[in-house]
């Protein structure tokens, strides 16, 4: 069975979209909500559990979207910056190392 993946939704405004274009990642954006773009960084079970433990305000929306929500803005900003720097969405292990 394929491993479950849980998205962290990073909402994309124009400025962020330009950064993703430069990093060659803009195609990874999805239109998720009435045209609003989202860049989704996926966590596996272990990463999800660690995120929920390390950032107690974060919440796993088990009922509606199966996504990890309410991460502090600076944490999501840092994940986004790492994706742009590494030109990859596979950054969570690296990001979580320091926690």
């Amino acid at each position, binding site marked *: 069975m394929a491993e479950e993946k849980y998205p962290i939704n990073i909402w994309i405004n124009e400025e962020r979209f330009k950064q993703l274009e430069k990093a060659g990642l803009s195609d990874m954006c999805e239109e998720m909500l009435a045209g609003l773009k989202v860049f989704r960084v996926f966590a596996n079970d272990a990463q999800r559990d660690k995120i929920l433990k390390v950032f107690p*305000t974060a919440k796993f929306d088990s009922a509606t979207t199966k996504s990890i929500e*309410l991460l502090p803005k600076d944490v999501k900003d840092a994940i986004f910056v790492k994706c742009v720097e590494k030109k990859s969405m596979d950054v969570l292990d690296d990001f979580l190392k320091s926690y």
Partner: protein
Amino acid sequence: MAEIGHGGKEIVERIMEPAQAKSKIQNLAKIPVRSQIANEIIGIAYGFFSPLQGFMGKADVESVCKNMKLANGVVWSIPILFDLSDEEIKQYGINKGASVVLTYNDNPMAIMEVEEIFDYDRKSMAAAVYGTDDPKHPGCSRTYAYKDKFIGGKITLINRPKINPPYDPYFVPPLELRKKFKDKGWVRVVAHQTRNVPHTGHEWLMKGAWFQTYGELSIEKPIVGVLVNAIIGEKRKGDYIDESIILTQDELRKSGYFGDHNHLTTLTFWDMRYAGPREAVFHAALRTNLGLTHHMYGRDHAGVGTYYGPYDAHHMLEKIAKDLAIVPVYSMNWLYCPHCGEVTSEGLCNHKKEWQKFSGTLIRSIVMDGVKPPRLIFRPEVFDLVMECADKYGFGSPFVTDDYLAKRIPVFEIPPM
């Protein structure tokens, strides 16, 4: 004419004028109370919790836990308790038959006639009310935090709370609210229970409930209203700040998504228990007292985590329908369908594969990122007001932070007498 509330009992405000109370309280023991108890004193004294006249005695607690009824047979689902430690009881010399003054902000708030001092097993209480004794459930955890003994007895408010801006226009006690409904000519009013800033899913829950409530009534004149009754109580970090909740709910009316003819926002002081089905029953009693004829219930009403099924509250309400004087209105979820290009009900639209569901949590995550959601999902006036409230009341954050908890403007204060 008498105003009849929950359980068929007349709503009577238990309020004594301060001038009359001043001499009565001079030699009485003064007991400070925390915000939960102060909220509940207001609930009892103004008739929000009618037919309760005070904090519950053991017979009521026993009956509420076992039968979901007060000892007099009226449906009631959640114990309303005043707790003190053994040490406090000794320190204040509290005895059965005595009267004491309950103080808040160091000022006299209410007289309590002590009728009973009793103990009750917290674990069995939690299991009965919440359907679990898991200490992780916030209601159970509140139950376990009660001090050694419970004090039962009638309450009389002797000093009205001063409601601080921006909340002041939204505190409308039951008798006053019923008058407002009459003035507006509303013959049916449906309650929207909330602790949230509204996204359009919430807006459509209200609109859908309004249509359901209108039913067979004549449409020649506007005679049906929606009452947004926001629950204001204990906050947790990450919640929207209270100022945002109450002001944005009203903004839907001010910005024309509703109007004066069909929408009103008020608040009730209450620390949510997250009791799911039993909280739904409590809401039915509360809103009956406010003069509402209908009450909207969505999925997993007042639930938390995975403790309750999505329709447990509906099933509970159906079981006791004959004992309630309010009609439950059940609502399905609303979502965005890109094919329809609109917010629609999951009960209507059949483009299931294209549905874009959204929750309050998801919207909070967008707001937290500082990104303005599309107007079909979150009204621009609401977003702008959330951000304005963050600056004005939230110390820069639209959500509850340590700063907000420490320095926020109190919703109400008890003034000196």
